[in-house]
């Protein structure tokens, strides 16, 4: 599948934002922070989530009608994602504003916001995981990995934003380990989930199964079309192993090393900035591969 920059940015950055919002909401829910003092933390979380959402709108052919996307939540994961994202940011924003204005709302809200964050990231992942024609995405490991990376990037941001939370560095290491373990499982499954793994092949695609051995003789047109550009993307698969290694080094090894360093130094904001930057860079590569590696059964009509 075509790896669109806006969608890569959207899924990683808003994932990190919702991870951070969830952790902040839980911390505030447990009474460890109050918004009149720590509103900047909330602003970072909201800023990330909202900029990710805005970037996703650039991906649309008619962005001016984007508001319509919240109407079909009964059937569509993309619509649910929109509704949940607006609810989460809205509720969290109101809570923080109220706190800044001196109103103390029930701490319970923290758990509600955290739960909404989990649902939002889950809905984002389900946009891809629901698609049966893309066997590499069509697995529960897809939402698991999106949630894992949302947590790991949120955790690293949490450690970075407030030296006070340096005690959580160990927790962040654990989250990194969990997130990348899930991703490695996803990769292991992906090795077996090629375009034919769902039982589709050129013969079933043409209705000639059981009648003949079938292969493409001639494409409909000599030049590329929308389907080929969007769904028969093949450039990245060549360098898959190298890119996976880069993703692991940037996204897992580097932030772990920076975390350790910061831990020894007793909490260092600058080192943690590096940790977050490396992790997000690794996630960009991971997300680019998530799209580039995915094969769509429509490619069976184009000679795959």
């Amino acid at each position: 599948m075509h790896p669109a920059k806006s969608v890569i940015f959207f899924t990683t950055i808003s994932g990190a934002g919702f991870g951070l919002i969830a952790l902040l909401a839980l911390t505030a829910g447990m009474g460890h922070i109050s918004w009149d003092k720590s509103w900047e933390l909330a602003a970072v979380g909201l800023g990330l989530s909202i900029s990710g959402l805005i970037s996703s709108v650039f991906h649309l052919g008619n962005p001016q009608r984007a508001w319509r996307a919240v109407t079909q939540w009964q059937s569509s994961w993309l619509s649910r994602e929109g509704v949940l994202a607006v609810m989460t940011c809205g509720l969290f924003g109101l809570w923080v504003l109220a706190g800044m204005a001196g109103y103390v709302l029930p701490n319970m809200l923290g758990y509600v916001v955290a739960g909404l964050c989990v649902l939002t990231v889950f809905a984002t992942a389900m946009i891809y995981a629901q698609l049966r024609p893309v066997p590499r995405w069509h697995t529960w490991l897809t939402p698991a990995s999106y949630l894992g990376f949302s947590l790991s990037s949120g955790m690293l941001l949490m450690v970075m934003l407030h030296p006070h939370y340096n005690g959580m560095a160990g927790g962040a290491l654990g989250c990194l380990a969990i997130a990348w373990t899930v991703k490695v499982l996803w990769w292991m499954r992906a090795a077996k989930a090629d375009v034919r793994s769902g039982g589709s092949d050129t013969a079933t695609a043409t209705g000639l199964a059981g009648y003949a051995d079938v292969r493409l003789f001639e494409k409909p047109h000599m030049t590329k079309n929308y389907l080929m550009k969007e769904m028969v993307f093949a450039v990245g698969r060549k360098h898959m192993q190298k890119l996976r290694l880069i993703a692991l080094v940037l996204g897992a090894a580097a932030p772990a090393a920076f975390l350790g360093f910061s831990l020894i130094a007793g909490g260092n904001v600058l080192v943690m900035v590096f940790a977050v930057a490396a992790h997000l860079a690794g996630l960009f590569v991971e997300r680019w591969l998530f799209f580039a590696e995915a094969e769509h059964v429509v490619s069976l009509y184009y000679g795959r």
Partner: protein
Amino acid sequence: MTMLPLEPTKKLGLVIDLDICVGCHACAVNCKEWNTGGYGNSLSDQEPFGADPAGTWLNRIHSFEAVPFDDAGQPAPQDARIVHFPKSCLHCDDAPCVTVCPTGASYKRSEDGIVLVNEDACIGCGLCAWACAYGAREMDAEAGVMKKCTLCVDRIYNENLPEEDRQPACVRSCPANARHFGDLADPSSDVSNMVVKRGGVDLMPEQGNRPVNKYLPPRPKSGTHACGSGQSDQVSLLKMAETPQAAGFVGWLDKALSKLD
């Protein structure tokens, strides 16, 4: 509304005969011609006269090389043939392109099962094209909205057209009569009969979309191979060339020429 309707009582669709499609692309051209001036935005082209032309089509013809299996289930290369394969939206009963749509632009009509896009509500997110296993939807690069086969909804009910033209453009234009239009929910319709008689099939049934459109498989070309009964009523051209046993005028000619030796 992107919830699917309850099972429509009428299911309009196409039956495409892979035995007689000659791959002339007339249906694709006529589809483009009709639909670029009809329902919704036009079907734009990019760089139509440039080095790398591209454009939106609702119907495309692929050609496949098919090596039919013999009675033992082995591919029989001597029976290899080209199967021309026209592909447009199959108006699936369980259309995933409809349920994924976040805006309600994609919908399936309850009255006749036709799957359509309301282009005024479409944001051009492209998710429906990803959800379709068959590649039946193409985003128009100019209008930024999703285009797909409308089953020529603006022809089939159009009382301004003469009766014989109230058919999809592709069906009307096919010179080989390889495309047929009708109600596949009505077991007595011509198209339903055709499907029963010829063993019409679904494309990629394993994807679970329950397509309405059906494809009729090629008829076996040789009696000794491929789904045949084993008895050939066909003539071997090779044998004929070696030992001509023709009757009538050709037989007389054969005898006359033989005498000349």
